[in-house]
Protein backbone atom coordinates (compact mmCIF):
# COMPACT_ATOMS: atom_id res chain seq x y z
CA UNK A 1 0.00 0.00 0.00
CA UNK A 2 1.88 3.04 -1.20
CA UNK A 3 -1.06 5.45 -1.08
CA UNK A 4 -1.26 6.68 2.47
CA UNK A 5 -4.25 5.12 4.20
CA UNK A 6 -4.81 8.48 5.87
CA UNK A 7 -5.46 10.05 2.48
CA UNK A 8 -7.89 7.30 1.59
CA UNK A 9 -11.10 6.37 3.39
CA UNK A 10 -10.35 3.45 5.67
CA UNK A 11 -12.95 0.98 6.89
CA UNK A 12 -12.75 -2.02 9.20
CA UNK A 13 -14.74 -4.99 8.04
CA UNK A 14 -15.33 -8.13 10.07
CA UNK A 15 -14.92 -11.18 7.80
CA UNK A 16 -17.43 -13.15 9.88
CA UNK A 17 -20.07 -10.49 9.29
CA UNK A 18 -19.23 -10.47 5.60
CA UNK A 19 -19.51 -14.26 5.52
CA UNK A 20 -22.99 -14.17 7.05
CA UNK A 21 -24.31 -11.44 4.72
CA UNK A 22 -22.04 -8.96 2.93
CA UNK A 23 -24.80 -7.00 1.21
CA UNK A 24 -25.72 -4.46 3.93
CA UNK A 25 -22.01 -3.58 4.30
CA UNK A 26 -21.60 -3.25 0.56
CA UNK A 27 -24.59 -0.88 0.41
CA UNK A 28 -22.94 1.25 3.09
CA UNK A 29 -19.60 1.26 1.24
CA UNK A 30 -21.25 2.20 -2.06
CA UNK A 31 -23.00 5.11 -0.36
CA UNK A 32 -20.19 6.48 1.83
CA UNK A 33 -16.80 5.20 0.72
CA UNK A 34 -16.98 3.60 -2.74
CA UNK A 35 -13.21 3.16 -2.85
CA UNK A 36 -12.05 2.30 0.67
CA UNK A 37 -8.94 0.82 2.23
CA UNK A 38 -9.53 -2.27 4.39
CA UNK A 39 -6.50 -2.79 6.67
CA UNK A 40 -7.38 -6.43 7.47
CA UNK A 41 -7.19 -7.25 3.76
CA UNK A 42 -4.43 -4.79 2.87
CA UNK A 43 -6.53 -3.83 -0.12
CA UNK A 44 -8.82 -1.13 -1.43
CA UNK A 45 -12.38 -2.33 -2.00
CA UNK A 46 -14.14 -0.91 -5.06
CA UNK A 47 -17.89 -1.32 -4.71
CA UNK A 48 -19.77 0.78 -7.29
CA UNK A 49 -20.78 -0.68 -10.65
CA UNK A 50 -19.14 2.04 -12.75
CA UNK A 51 -15.80 1.79 -10.93
CA UNK A 52 -15.78 -2.02 -10.99
CA UNK A 53 -16.29 -1.93 -14.76
CA UNK A 54 -13.48 0.60 -15.15
CA UNK A 55 -11.06 -1.56 -13.13
CA UNK A 56 -12.06 -4.70 -14.98
CA UNK A 57 -11.66 -3.26 -18.47
CA UNK A 58 -8.50 -1.19 -18.21
CA UNK A 59 -5.89 -3.88 -17.74
CA UNK A 60 -3.05 -1.51 -18.55
CA UNK A 61 -3.88 0.57 -15.47
CA UNK A 62 -5.30 -2.22 -13.30
CA UNK A 63 -3.02 -5.18 -13.83
CA UNK A 64 -3.84 -8.81 -13.05
CA UNK A 65 -0.19 -9.29 -12.04
CA UNK A 66 0.49 -8.76 -8.36
CA UNK A 67 4.01 -8.47 -7.00
CA UNK A 68 3.12 -10.51 -3.90
CA UNK A 69 1.12 -13.58 -4.86
CA UNK A 70 -1.82 -14.66 -2.70
CA UNK A 71 -2.06 -17.86 -0.64
CA UNK A 72 -3.55 -19.77 -3.57
CA UNK A 73 -0.17 -19.50 -5.30
CA UNK A 74 1.37 -21.98 -2.86
CA UNK A 75 -1.06 -24.70 -3.99
CA UNK A 76 -1.99 -23.76 -7.52
CA UNK A 77 1.04 -21.88 -8.85
CA UNK A 78 0.77 -19.23 -11.53
CA UNK A 79 -2.34 -19.39 -13.74
CA UNK A 80 -3.72 -17.43 -16.65
CA UNK A 81 -5.57 -15.32 -14.07
CA UNK A 82 -2.35 -13.52 -13.16
CA UNK A 83 -1.23 -12.57 -16.67
CA UNK A 84 -2.08 -9.60 -18.87
CA UNK A 85 -1.92 -8.98 -22.57
CA UNK A 86 -2.06 -10.85 -25.81
CA UNK A 87 1.15 -12.85 -25.67
CA UNK A 88 1.11 -13.86 -22.01
CA UNK A 89 -2.60 -14.17 -21.23
CA UNK A 90 -4.58 -14.60 -24.42
CA UNK A 91 -2.24 -17.31 -25.72
CA UNK A 92 -2.93 -19.47 -22.66
CA UNK A 93 -6.60 -18.66 -22.71
CA UNK A 94 -6.97 -19.68 -26.35
CA UNK A 95 -5.70 -23.17 -25.52
CA UNK A 96 -8.23 -23.53 -22.73
CA UNK A 97 -11.39 -22.01 -24.12
CA UNK A 98 -11.96 -24.45 -27.00
CA UNK A 99 -14.40 -26.76 -25.14
CA UNK A 100 -16.11 -23.77 -23.52
CA UNK A 101 -17.16 -21.97 -26.69
CA UNK A 102 -20.73 -22.07 -27.98
CA UNK A 103 -20.23 -24.45 -30.89
CA UNK A 104 -18.30 -27.10 -28.94
CA UNK A 105 -20.87 -26.82 -26.18
CA UNK A 106 -23.78 -27.27 -28.54
CA UNK A 107 -22.27 -30.04 -30.62
CA UNK A 108 -20.52 -32.01 -27.94
CA UNK A 109 -21.02 -30.99 -24.33
CA UNK A 110 -24.71 -30.11 -24.09
CA UNK A 111 -25.75 -33.76 -24.69
CA UNK A 112 -23.26 -34.80 -22.00
CA UNK A 113 -24.55 -32.17 -19.55
CA UNK A 114 -28.12 -33.26 -20.32
CA UNK A 115 -27.31 -36.91 -19.64
CA UNK A 116 -25.55 -36.01 -16.37
CA UNK A 117 -28.58 -34.02 -15.15
CA UNK A 118 -31.01 -36.73 -16.22
CA UNK A 119 -29.04 -39.48 -14.45
CA UNK A 120 -29.07 -37.59 -11.14
CA UNK A 121 -32.74 -36.62 -11.41
CA UNK A 122 -33.77 -40.17 -12.34
CA UNK A 123 -32.13 -41.39 -9.15
CA UNK A 124 -33.83 -38.71 -7.07
CA UNK A 125 -37.31 -38.69 -8.60
CA UNK A 126 -38.81 -41.45 -6.42
CA UNK A 127 -37.53 -40.05 -3.12
CA UNK A 128 -39.83 -37.07 -2.67
CA UNK A 129 -37.27 -35.09 -0.72
CA UNK A 130 -33.60 -34.20 -0.96
CA UNK A 131 -30.96 -31.59 -0.27
CA UNK A 132 -30.53 -29.93 -3.65
CA UNK A 133 -27.04 -28.81 -2.63
CA UNK A 134 -25.60 -32.25 -1.82
CA UNK A 135 -27.84 -34.46 -3.95
CA UNK A 136 -28.09 -32.52 -7.20
CA UNK A 137 -26.22 -29.24 -7.69
CA UNK A 138 -22.83 -30.35 -6.34
CA UNK A 139 -22.55 -33.75 -8.09
CA UNK A 140 -23.96 -32.30 -11.31
CA UNK A 141 -21.38 -29.51 -11.40
CA UNK A 142 -18.62 -32.03 -10.65
CA UNK A 143 -19.75 -34.47 -13.36
CA UNK A 144 -19.98 -31.70 -15.96
CA UNK A 145 -16.57 -30.35 -14.98
CA UNK A 146 -14.92 -33.79 -15.09
CA UNK A 147 -16.45 -34.29 -18.54
CA UNK A 148 -15.12 -31.16 -20.21
CA UNK A 149 -11.74 -31.30 -18.49
CA UNK A 150 -11.25 -34.80 -19.89
CA UNK A 151 -11.03 -36.57 -16.50
CA UNK A 152 -12.26 -40.06 -17.33
CA UNK A 153 -12.76 -42.40 -14.38
CA UNK A 154 -12.65 -39.57 -11.82
CA UNK A 155 -15.76 -39.75 -9.64
CA UNK A 156 -17.85 -36.69 -8.80
CA UNK A 157 -16.97 -37.11 -5.13
CA UNK A 158 -13.25 -37.27 -5.90
CA UNK A 159 -13.39 -34.03 -7.86
CA UNK A 160 -15.52 -32.38 -5.14
CA UNK A 161 -12.89 -33.32 -2.54
CA UNK A 162 -10.03 -31.99 -4.68
CA UNK A 163 -11.88 -28.75 -5.32
CA UNK A 164 -12.53 -28.28 -1.62
CA UNK A 165 -8.90 -29.09 -0.76
CA UNK A 166 -7.59 -26.52 -3.23
CA UNK A 167 -10.05 -23.78 -2.29
CA UNK A 168 -9.83 -24.20 1.48
CA UNK A 169 -6.05 -23.92 1.34
CA UNK A 170 -5.87 -21.29 -1.39
CA UNK A 171 -8.77 -19.19 -0.18
CA UNK A 172 -6.86 -17.92 2.82
CA UNK A 173 -9.83 -18.25 5.15
CA UNK A 174 -8.67 -20.82 7.64
CA UNK A 175 -4.91 -20.52 7.69
CA UNK A 176 -4.73 -21.45 11.36
CA UNK A 177 -5.95 -24.96 10.59
CA UNK A 178 -2.85 -27.13 10.21
CA UNK A 179 -4.69 -29.78 8.22
CA UNK A 180 -5.72 -27.28 5.53
CA UNK A 181 -2.37 -27.26 3.77
CA UNK A 182 -1.93 -31.00 4.00
CA UNK A 183 -5.32 -31.55 2.37
CA UNK A 184 -4.56 -28.85 -0.18
CA UNK A 185 -1.32 -30.49 -1.29
CA UNK A 186 -2.98 -33.91 -1.38
CA UNK A 187 -5.69 -32.44 -3.63
CA UNK A 188 -3.03 -30.90 -5.87
CA UNK A 189 -1.26 -34.25 -6.21
CA UNK A 190 -4.54 -35.93 -7.10
CA UNK A 191 -5.29 -33.36 -9.79
CA UNK A 192 -1.79 -33.68 -11.23
CA UNK A 193 -2.11 -37.46 -11.48
CA UNK A 194 -5.53 -37.23 -13.13
CA UNK A 195 -4.24 -34.55 -15.53
CA UNK A 196 -1.26 -36.70 -16.50
CA UNK A 197 -3.56 -39.68 -17.13
CA UNK A 198 -5.85 -37.58 -19.32
CA UNK A 199 -2.89 -36.02 -21.16
CA UNK A 200 -1.45 -39.45 -21.95
CA UNK A 201 -4.80 -40.57 -23.33
CA UNK A 202 -5.40 -37.59 -25.63
CA UNK A 203 -1.84 -36.84 -26.77
CA UNK A 204 -1.95 -37.25 -30.55
CA UNK A 205 -5.48 -38.57 -30.19
CA UNK A 206 -7.54 -35.39 -29.74
CA UNK A 207 -11.01 -35.23 -28.22
CA UNK A 208 -13.17 -32.18 -27.38
CA UNK A 209 -11.84 -31.87 -23.81
CA UNK A 210 -9.87 -28.98 -22.34
CA UNK A 211 -6.82 -31.09 -21.58
CA UNK A 212 -6.81 -32.34 -25.17
CA UNK A 213 -7.01 -28.79 -26.47
CA UNK A 214 -4.03 -27.75 -24.34
CA UNK A 215 -1.90 -30.85 -24.97
CA UNK A 216 -2.45 -30.82 -28.72
CA UNK A 217 -1.85 -27.08 -29.19
CA UNK A 218 0.96 -26.19 -31.58
CA UNK A 219 2.85 -24.52 -28.73
CA UNK A 220 1.48 -26.23 -25.61
CA UNK A 221 1.91 -25.04 -22.06
CA UNK A 222 4.64 -26.33 -19.80
CA UNK A 223 3.51 -29.18 -17.51
CA UNK A 224 3.46 -26.79 -14.54
CA UNK A 225 1.29 -24.31 -16.47
CA UNK A 226 -1.02 -27.17 -17.45
CA UNK A 227 -1.45 -28.33 -13.84
CA UNK A 228 -1.91 -24.78 -12.54
CA UNK A 229 -4.51 -23.89 -15.13
CA UNK A 230 -6.43 -27.14 -14.61
CA UNK A 231 -6.43 -26.43 -10.87
CA UNK A 232 -7.77 -22.90 -11.36
CA UNK A 233 -10.43 -24.32 -13.68
CA UNK A 234 -11.48 -26.73 -10.93
CA UNK A 235 -11.38 -23.90 -8.39
CA UNK A 236 -13.65 -21.75 -10.57
CA UNK A 237 -15.70 -24.38 -12.38
CA UNK A 238 -17.46 -26.44 -9.74
CA UNK A 239 -18.77 -24.29 -6.91
CA UNK A 240 -19.94 -21.54 -9.24
CA UNK A 241 -22.36 -23.51 -11.43
CA UNK A 242 -23.52 -25.26 -8.24
CA UNK A 243 -24.19 -21.94 -6.51
CA UNK A 244 -25.92 -20.24 -9.41
CA UNK A 245 -28.16 -23.27 -9.90
CA UNK A 246 -29.20 -23.20 -6.25
CA UNK A 247 -29.60 -19.43 -6.19
CA UNK A 248 -31.82 -19.53 -9.28
CA UNK A 249 -33.88 -22.40 -7.85
CA UNK A 250 -34.29 -20.53 -4.57
CA UNK A 251 -35.31 -17.35 -6.39
CA UNK A 252 -38.02 -19.20 -8.30
CA UNK A 253 -39.22 -21.28 -5.33
CA UNK A 254 -39.68 -18.14 -3.25
CA UNK A 255 -41.34 -16.21 -6.10
CA UNK A 256 -44.15 -18.46 -7.41
CA UNK A 257 -45.31 -15.84 -9.92
CA UNK A 258 -41.88 -15.87 -11.56
CA UNK A 259 -41.80 -19.67 -11.56
CA UNK A 260 -45.18 -19.71 -13.29
CA UNK A 261 -43.91 -17.16 -15.83
CA UNK A 262 -40.81 -19.17 -16.72
CA UNK A 263 -42.81 -22.39 -16.97
CA UNK A 264 -45.16 -20.65 -19.41
CA UNK A 265 -42.35 -19.02 -21.40
CA UNK A 266 -39.20 -21.17 -21.55
CA UNK A 267 -37.13 -18.37 -23.09
CA UNK A 268 -37.17 -16.88 -19.58
CA UNK A 269 -34.80 -19.59 -18.30
CA UNK A 270 -31.98 -17.59 -19.80
CA UNK A 271 -33.07 -14.48 -17.89
CA UNK A 272 -33.50 -16.55 -14.75
CA UNK A 273 -29.90 -17.67 -14.99
CA UNK A 274 -28.57 -14.14 -15.58
CA UNK A 275 -30.67 -12.70 -12.74
CA UNK A 276 -29.37 -15.36 -10.34
CA UNK A 277 -25.81 -14.38 -11.32
CA UNK A 278 -26.62 -10.76 -10.53
CA UNK A 279 -28.62 -11.32 -7.35
CA UNK A 280 -26.05 -13.48 -5.54
CA UNK A 281 -22.86 -13.58 -7.58
CA UNK A 282 -21.10 -16.93 -7.05
CA UNK A 283 -17.70 -15.23 -7.16
CA UNK A 284 -17.98 -11.95 -5.32
CA UNK A 285 -14.73 -10.22 -6.20
CA UNK A 286 -11.60 -10.08 -8.33
CA UNK A 287 -8.17 -8.65 -7.58
CA UNK A 288 -5.93 -6.22 -9.43
CA UNK A 289 -2.81 -4.16 -8.75
CA UNK A 290 -2.52 -0.54 -9.83
CA UNK A 291 0.16 -0.15 -12.51
CA UNK A 292 0.17 3.64 -12.98
CA UNK A 293 -1.20 6.64 -11.05
CA UNK A 294 -4.94 7.02 -11.52
CA UNK A 295 -7.97 8.48 -9.78
CA UNK A 296 -10.89 6.17 -9.11
CA UNK A 297 -14.10 7.10 -7.33
CA UNK A 298 -12.49 10.29 -6.07
CA UNK A 299 -9.49 8.49 -4.58
CA UNK A 300 -5.95 8.84 -5.92
CA UNK A 301 -4.29 5.47 -6.47
CA UNK A 302 -0.58 4.82 -6.86
CA UNK A 303 1.34 2.04 -8.59
CA UNK A 304 1.50 -0.98 -6.30
CA UNK A 305 -1.86 -0.34 -4.61
CA UNK A 306 -3.81 -3.58 -4.36
CA UNK A 307 -7.45 -3.33 -5.17
CA UNK A 308 -10.44 -5.66 -5.11
CA UNK A 309 -13.33 -5.16 -7.52
CA UNK A 310 -16.43 -6.29 -5.67
CA UNK A 311 -18.71 -7.58 -8.42
CA UNK A 312 -21.26 -8.76 -5.83
CA UNK A 313 -21.66 -5.15 -4.74
CA UNK A 314 -21.67 -3.73 -8.28
CA UNK A 315 -24.49 -6.12 -9.10
CA UNK A 316 -26.59 -4.57 -6.28
CA UNK A 317 -25.70 -0.95 -7.15
CA UNK A 318 -28.86 1.14 -6.77
CA UNK A 319 -27.42 3.63 -9.29
CA UNK A 320 -27.83 0.95 -11.95
CA UNK A 321 -30.59 -1.43 -10.82
CA UNK A 322 -34.02 -0.58 -9.37
CA UNK A 323 -34.76 -2.54 -6.15
CA UNK A 324 -31.39 -4.27 -6.42
CA UNK A 325 -31.97 -6.65 -3.50
CA UNK A 326 -35.04 -8.17 -5.16
CA UNK A 327 -34.82 -11.28 -7.37
CA UNK A 328 -36.65 -10.36 -10.58
CA UNK A 329 -36.23 -12.32 -13.80
CA UNK A 330 -38.09 -9.58 -15.69
CA UNK A 331 -35.53 -6.99 -14.64
CA UNK A 332 -34.25 -4.36 -17.10
CA UNK A 333 -30.82 -2.82 -16.87
CA UNK A 334 -27.28 -3.35 -18.02
CA UNK A 335 -25.55 -6.74 -17.98
CA UNK A 336 -24.52 -8.01 -14.57
CA UNK A 337 -20.81 -8.18 -13.86
CA UNK A 338 -20.75 -11.63 -12.23
CA UNK A 339 -18.56 -12.85 -15.10
CA UNK A 340 -16.25 -9.92 -14.39
CA UNK A 341 -16.84 -6.33 -15.35
CA UNK A 342 -15.64 -6.89 -18.91
CA UNK A 343 -12.18 -7.07 -20.33
CA UNK A 344 -9.70 -9.85 -20.98
CA UNK A 345 -10.53 -11.88 -17.86
CA UNK A 346 -14.22 -12.21 -18.74
CA UNK A 347 -15.23 -15.59 -17.24
CA UNK A 348 -13.91 -18.34 -19.48
CA UNK A 349 -16.72 -20.65 -18.30
CA UNK A 350 -19.58 -18.22 -18.93
CA UNK A 351 -21.02 -20.08 -21.91
CA UNK A 352 -20.57 -23.49 -20.30
CA UNK A 353 -22.44 -22.26 -17.21
CA UNK A 354 -25.20 -20.70 -19.31
CA UNK A 355 -25.64 -23.98 -21.18
CA UNK A 356 -25.22 -26.46 -18.32
CA UNK A 357 -27.32 -24.56 -15.77
CA UNK A 358 -29.54 -22.07 -17.63
CA UNK A 359 -30.42 -24.16 -20.66
CA UNK A 360 -30.27 -27.65 -19.17
CA UNK A 361 -30.21 -28.17 -15.39
CA UNK A 362 -32.81 -25.65 -14.25
CA UNK A 363 -35.57 -26.66 -16.70
CA UNK A 364 -34.77 -30.35 -16.10
CA UNK A 365 -34.99 -29.93 -12.33
CA UNK A 366 -38.42 -28.29 -12.42
CA UNK A 367 -39.71 -30.70 -15.10
CA UNK A 368 -38.57 -33.88 -13.42
CA UNK A 369 -39.55 -33.14 -9.80
CA UNK A 370 -43.26 -32.22 -9.79
CA UNK A 371 -44.47 -29.53 -7.40
CA UNK A 372 -40.91 -28.87 -6.23
CA UNK A 373 -40.93 -26.72 -3.07
CA UNK A 374 -38.65 -25.68 -0.22
CA UNK A 375 -39.02 -27.91 2.83
CA UNK A 376 -41.24 -25.76 5.07
CA UNK A 377 -39.68 -27.22 8.22
CA UNK A 378 -36.06 -26.45 7.39
CA UNK A 379 -34.04 -23.34 6.71
CA UNK A 380 -31.88 -22.56 3.68
CA UNK A 381 -28.56 -21.33 5.14
CA UNK A 382 -26.41 -18.99 3.01
CA UNK A 383 -22.77 -18.14 3.45
CA UNK A 384 -19.67 -16.60 1.94
CA UNK A 385 -18.47 -13.38 0.38
CA UNK A 386 -15.47 -14.31 -1.78
CA UNK A 387 -17.68 -17.18 -2.94
CA UNK A 388 -21.34 -17.13 -1.94
CA UNK A 389 -24.39 -19.33 -2.23
CA UNK A 390 -26.81 -21.53 -0.30
CA UNK A 391 -25.00 -24.05 1.92
CA UNK A 392 -27.92 -26.51 1.83
CA UNK A 393 -31.34 -26.52 0.20
CA UNK A 394 -33.81 -29.03 1.63
CA UNK A 395 -36.70 -29.53 -0.81
CA UNK A 396 -39.72 -31.77 -1.29
CA UNK A 397 -41.74 -32.75 -4.34
CA UNK A 398 -44.57 -35.10 -5.28
CA UNK A 399 -42.92 -38.47 -5.82
Amino acid at each position, binding site marked *: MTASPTATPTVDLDPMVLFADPYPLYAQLRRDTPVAYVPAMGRLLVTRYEDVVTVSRDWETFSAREDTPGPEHKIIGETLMSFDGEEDHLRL*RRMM*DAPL*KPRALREHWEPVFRANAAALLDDLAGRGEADLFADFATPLAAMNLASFLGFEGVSAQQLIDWCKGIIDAGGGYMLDDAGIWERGFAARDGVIAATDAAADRVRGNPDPSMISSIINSPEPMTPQQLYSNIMITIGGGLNEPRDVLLTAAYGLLTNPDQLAAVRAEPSLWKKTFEEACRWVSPIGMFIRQVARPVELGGVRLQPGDKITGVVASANRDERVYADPDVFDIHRKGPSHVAF*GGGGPHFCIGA*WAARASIGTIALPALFDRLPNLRLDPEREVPWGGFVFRGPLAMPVRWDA
Partner: protein
Amino acid sequence: MPRIVYVLPDGTRREVDAAAGTSVMKNAVLNDVPGITAECGGSLMCATCHVYVDPADAGRFPPRADDEEEMLEVTEAEVRETSRLSCQLTVDDTLDGITVHVPEEDA
Protein backbone atom coordinates in the same frame (compact mmCIF):
# COMPACT_ATOMS: atom_id res chain seq x y z
CA MET B 1 -6.83 9.16 -38.94
CA PRO B 2 -9.84 7.18 -40.18
CA ARG B 3 -13.30 8.27 -39.05
CA ILE B 4 -15.82 5.66 -37.89
CA VAL B 5 -19.53 6.46 -38.01
CA TYR B 6 -21.73 4.61 -35.50
CA VAL B 7 -25.47 4.77 -36.24
CA LEU B 8 -27.55 4.10 -33.12
CA PRO B 9 -30.93 2.33 -33.28
CA ASP B 10 -32.76 5.68 -33.02
CA GLY B 11 -30.86 6.98 -36.05
CA THR B 12 -28.42 9.17 -34.11
CA ARG B 13 -24.95 9.28 -35.69
CA ARG B 14 -21.79 9.25 -33.58
CA GLU B 15 -18.55 10.03 -35.41
CA VAL B 16 -15.22 9.02 -33.93
CA ASP B 17 -11.71 9.71 -35.23
CA ALA B 18 -9.85 6.46 -34.68
CA ALA B 19 -6.16 5.65 -34.58
CA ALA B 20 -5.16 3.40 -37.47
CA GLY B 21 -4.76 -0.19 -36.33
CA THR B 22 -7.47 -0.02 -33.65
CA SER B 23 -10.77 -1.86 -33.74
CA VAL B 24 -14.29 -0.58 -34.27
CA MET B 25 -15.11 -2.11 -30.85
CA LYS B 26 -12.26 -0.39 -29.02
CA ASN B 27 -13.20 3.02 -30.41
CA ALA B 28 -16.83 2.48 -29.43
CA VAL B 29 -15.86 1.61 -25.86
CA LEU B 30 -13.37 4.50 -25.57
CA ASN B 31 -16.06 6.92 -26.75
CA ASP B 32 -18.96 5.43 -24.78
CA VAL B 33 -20.99 4.50 -27.84
CA PRO B 34 -24.07 2.86 -26.27
CA GLY B 35 -24.98 -0.69 -27.22
CA ILE B 36 -21.45 -1.96 -27.79
CA THR B 37 -20.77 -3.62 -24.45
CA ALA B 38 -17.74 -5.68 -25.45
CA GLU B 39 -17.74 -7.73 -22.26
CA CYS B 40 -14.69 -9.81 -23.12
CA GLY B 41 -12.60 -6.92 -24.37
CA GLY B 42 -11.88 -8.53 -27.72
CA SER B 43 -11.09 -12.11 -26.69
CA LEU B 44 -13.82 -13.48 -29.01
CA MET B 45 -15.71 -14.95 -26.08
CA CYS B 46 -18.80 -12.81 -25.55
CA ALA B 47 -20.57 -11.61 -28.74
CA THR B 48 -21.58 -8.31 -27.10
CA CYS B 49 -19.87 -6.07 -29.67
CA HIS B 50 -22.16 -7.09 -32.54
CA VAL B 51 -22.72 -4.48 -35.28
CA TYR B 52 -24.16 -4.37 -38.79
CA VAL B 53 -21.75 -2.95 -41.35
CA ASP B 54 -23.56 -0.44 -43.56
CA PRO B 55 -24.50 -2.12 -46.86
CA ALA B 56 -22.63 0.66 -48.72
CA ASP B 57 -19.44 -0.47 -46.94
CA ALA B 58 -20.00 -4.19 -47.44
CA GLY B 59 -16.83 -5.80 -48.70
CA ARG B 60 -14.48 -3.18 -47.26
CA PHE B 61 -13.49 -5.45 -44.39
CA PRO B 62 -11.92 -8.89 -44.76
CA PRO B 63 -14.53 -11.67 -44.42
CA ARG B 64 -15.47 -13.26 -41.09
CA ALA B 65 -13.12 -15.86 -39.70
CA ASP B 66 -14.48 -19.14 -38.39
CA ASP B 67 -14.20 -18.20 -34.71
CA GLU B 68 -16.08 -14.97 -35.38
CA GLU B 69 -18.81 -16.95 -37.17
CA GLU B 70 -19.11 -19.12 -34.10
CA MET B 71 -19.68 -16.25 -31.70
CA LEU B 72 -22.17 -14.63 -34.08
CA GLU B 73 -24.36 -17.70 -33.46
CA VAL B 74 -24.98 -16.50 -29.89
CA THR B 75 -25.63 -12.78 -30.33
CA GLU B 76 -28.73 -11.30 -28.72
CA ALA B 77 -29.84 -9.43 -31.83
CA GLU B 78 -30.78 -10.97 -35.17
CA VAL B 79 -27.79 -11.99 -37.31
CA ARG B 80 -27.75 -10.62 -40.83
CA GLU B 81 -25.44 -10.83 -43.86
CA THR B 82 -23.81 -7.63 -42.64
CA SER B 83 -23.35 -8.79 -39.02
CA ARG B 84 -19.83 -8.55 -37.60
CA LEU B 85 -18.19 -8.58 -34.22
CA SER B 86 -16.69 -5.13 -34.07
CA CYS B 87 -13.64 -6.37 -32.14
CA GLN B 88 -12.61 -8.10 -35.36
CA LEU B 89 -12.89 -4.96 -37.53
CA THR B 90 -9.59 -3.09 -37.61
CA VAL B 91 -9.56 0.33 -39.24
CA ASP B 92 -6.85 2.01 -41.27
CA ASP B 93 -6.70 5.07 -43.53
CA THR B 94 -8.32 3.21 -46.42
CA LEU B 95 -11.44 2.72 -44.28
CA ASP B 96 -12.11 6.39 -43.54
CA GLY B 97 -15.84 7.05 -43.15
CA ILE B 98 -16.75 3.42 -42.48
CA THR B 99 -20.29 3.19 -41.12
CA VAL B 100 -21.67 0.57 -38.74
CA HIS B 101 -25.13 0.22 -37.20
CA VAL B 102 -25.63 -0.74 -33.55
CA PRO B 103 -28.32 -3.45 -33.17
CA GLU B 104 -31.48 -2.49 -31.32
CA GLU B 105 -31.54 -5.32 -28.77
CA ASP B 106 -28.09 -4.52 -27.47
CA ALA B 107 -28.75 -0.83 -26.97
